[in-house]
């Protein structure tokens, strides 16, 4: 008896603890027994005689023979319950117990897990989008680079086109000036000589602008070449002064040049590059200065040339100082024209010459630009007039050049010095001439119709014709020079060529053959 009551007691306790409720149905789903506490879960109307299909939602569709566990079913009260269907002989017992605690725990866990997984999915999706976006960006970049490359090659192309006629303008004005000078020894033509001088200076200025454009295309590719040679610094600075004076005069500002040396001052440097830098820096200074002065200082110490350009212009803000060396950058509010390339190129050239461009400025206080480059000094001998220095050697010259203006100019200048010059205007004719006649020296353009200069060099090698050939090219690109030299050219001159350079090289070639 004690045992039975203990068992009953335990059963009672468990029943209450699990909030256990139950009902039994027969095989037609009719309720044959039901606990009273079913209502605690919201199951109402579960009374003997009722149909379980109708009064208990989860019972619909189930049968009385199959054992089944339905965990965590939401009961009408909102509480989660565990349902067990236990078939026995001729009836089915349905046990319902509370699953609230388990469900709550499960809810927390599951919610976290699912949210996490959604987050991960979202992340993967975003990563993919990011990848796509960066792929697109890369494509855009390639397109931009291509566009920039096209722009650069367009600039180089256009500047090449400009360079040739400019060269001829400069050459012809030189001829006119010489003619005027010798015709007017009495000074009667001095006005015209002055005017022609102005034309010449402007042309040279224009040429240096064109050179900037050409160089811009080479900024990235390390193709700007510096070739130091003996140079009279004093003459170079005087030239630059003469070239830019009209600009400062035109703006009614003072242009002061302070040189720490006297003529002649022979050093080793690339005169045309140095000239280009000075023109760029002074051109900028004059352009941006509306009143006051622009001052150029230059001095030599311990084989270093120190140059400074000082202006009293509006100055540059700290913010803009950082941007000023970028290509094409121009302070938006200056309203000044220009290519915006000068400073970028100057900085690069100064670097190549072994120096560093320094800029300091403050709004309202003007701008100072300076650099220092190696310029080893040579003993200054009085410099004789060049043409007298060069000995004349009788020579028969073949000139191959398709630009008639340039060709005429060269023929004229060489004939003037007593040389015999034949001119042809394409590579094929040049080759024919060399096969059939004896020449001492060939001066040949690279870009010509029918056969290029390269083609001719190649053929000459094949045919064993050894006449020395000097190539004239508008291209300062090192690989072009290397190619020509590989094909056996005697020397490679960059246009515009100086007639004295031509004669010097020719003399050398003739000496070597003799």
């Amino acid at each position, binding site marked *: 008896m004690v045992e039975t009551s203990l068992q009953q007691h335990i059963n009672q306790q468990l029943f209450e603890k699990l909030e256990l409720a139950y009902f039994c149905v027969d095989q037609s789903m009719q309720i044959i027994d039901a606990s009273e506490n079913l209502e605690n879960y919201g199951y109402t109307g579960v009374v003997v005689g009722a149909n379980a*299909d109708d009064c208990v*939602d*989860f019972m*619909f*569709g*189930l*049968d009385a023979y*199959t054992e*089944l*566990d*339905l*965990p*965590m*079913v*939401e009961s009408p009260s909102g509480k*989660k319950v565990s349902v067990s269907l236990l078939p026995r002989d001729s009836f089915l017992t349905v046990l319902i117990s509370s*699953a609230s605690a388990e*469900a709550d725990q*499960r*809810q927390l*866990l*599951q*919610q976290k*897990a*699912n*949210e996490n*997984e*959604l987050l991960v*999915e979202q992340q993967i*999706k975003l990563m993919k989008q990011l990848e796509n976006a960066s792929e697109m960006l890369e494509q855009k970049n390639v397109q931009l680079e291509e566009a920039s490359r096209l722009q650069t090659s367009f600039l180089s192309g256009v500047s090449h086109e400009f360079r040739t006629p400019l060269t001829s303008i400069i050459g012809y004005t030189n001829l006119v000036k010489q003619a005027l000078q010798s015709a007017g020894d009495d000074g009667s033509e001095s006005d015209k000589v002055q005017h022609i001088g102005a034309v010449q200076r402007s042309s040279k200025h224009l040429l240096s602008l064109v050179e900037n454009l050409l160089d811009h295309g080479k900024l990235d590719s390390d193709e700007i070449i510096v070739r130091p040679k003996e140079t009279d610094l004093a003459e170079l600075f005087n030239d630059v002064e003469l070239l830019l004076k009209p600009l400062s005069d035109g703006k009614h500002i003072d242009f002061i040049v302070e040189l720490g040396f006297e003529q002649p001052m022979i050093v080793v440097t690339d005169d045309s590059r140095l000239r280009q830098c000075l023109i760029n820096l002074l051109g900028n200074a004059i352009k941006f200065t509306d009143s006051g002065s622009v001052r150029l200082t230059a001095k030599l110490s311990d084989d270093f040339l120190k140059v400074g350009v000082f202006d009293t212009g509006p100055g540059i803000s700290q913010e803009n100082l950082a941007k000023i060396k970028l290509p094409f950058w121009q302070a938006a509010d200056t309203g000044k024209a220009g290519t915006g390339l000068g400073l970028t190129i100057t900085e690069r050239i100064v670097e190549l010459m072994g120096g560093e461009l320094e800029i300091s400025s403050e709004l309202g206080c003007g701008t100072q630009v300076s650099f220092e480059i190696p310029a080893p000094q040579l003993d200054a001998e009085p410099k004789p007039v060049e043409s007298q220095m060069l000995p004349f050697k009788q020579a028969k010259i073949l000139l191959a050049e398709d630009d008639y203006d340039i060709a005429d100019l060269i023929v004229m200048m060489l004939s003037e010095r007593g040389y015999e010059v034949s001119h042809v205007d394409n590579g094929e004719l040049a080759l024919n001439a060399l096969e059939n006649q004896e020449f001492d020296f060939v001066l040949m353009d690279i870009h010509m119709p029918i056969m290029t200069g390269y083609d001719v060099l190649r053929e000459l090698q094949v045919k064993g014709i050894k006449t020395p050939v000097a190539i004239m090219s508008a291209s300062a690109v090192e690989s072009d020079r290397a190619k020509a030299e590989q094909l056996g050219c005697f020397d490679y001159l960059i246009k515009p060529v100086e007639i004295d350079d031509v004669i010097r090289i020719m003399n050398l070639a003739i000496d070597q053959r003799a």
Partner: protein
Amino acid sequence: MLKKKICMVGDFSVGKTSLTQKFVNNVFSEKYLTTIGVKIDTAFVNDTKLIVWDVAGRDSLSPINASYLVGASGIVLVCDGTRQSTVLDIKDIWQVVKKRIGEVPAVVALNKSDLEDWHIDAQQTAYFEEQGWQTFETSAKDGQNVKALFEALVSEIG
């Protein structure tokens, strides 16, 4: 009066609960609350009383519990049009259904049609056609095709 038990199945968070609530109570909530176990609701399609079992989705912690499916006359297969994997998972889920209760009538809800990053193409839904399931682009949010979905299932059940 006709009475039918149907079950909503599919991966977690595809919108089973939302579609059920839209259909039964015409409400929608943006907030995501994971369904635990099962919730049973009733609604009418014409004079058929539907007993809708909104079953917890298949997820990383648990497969769908096939006991809930016992006695169902039809199945609504729900997937999320913005999550490709949920579309592909229908195939596996159908195997579970088939194993427990056989090839009962089914319809497919491609849910969340109101969202922009919709990823469904014909290749992914080819399986649905093979099975001969009517497929609906649904939105529990704006109600698109929700009624049509349940009506189609009822007529499939016959």
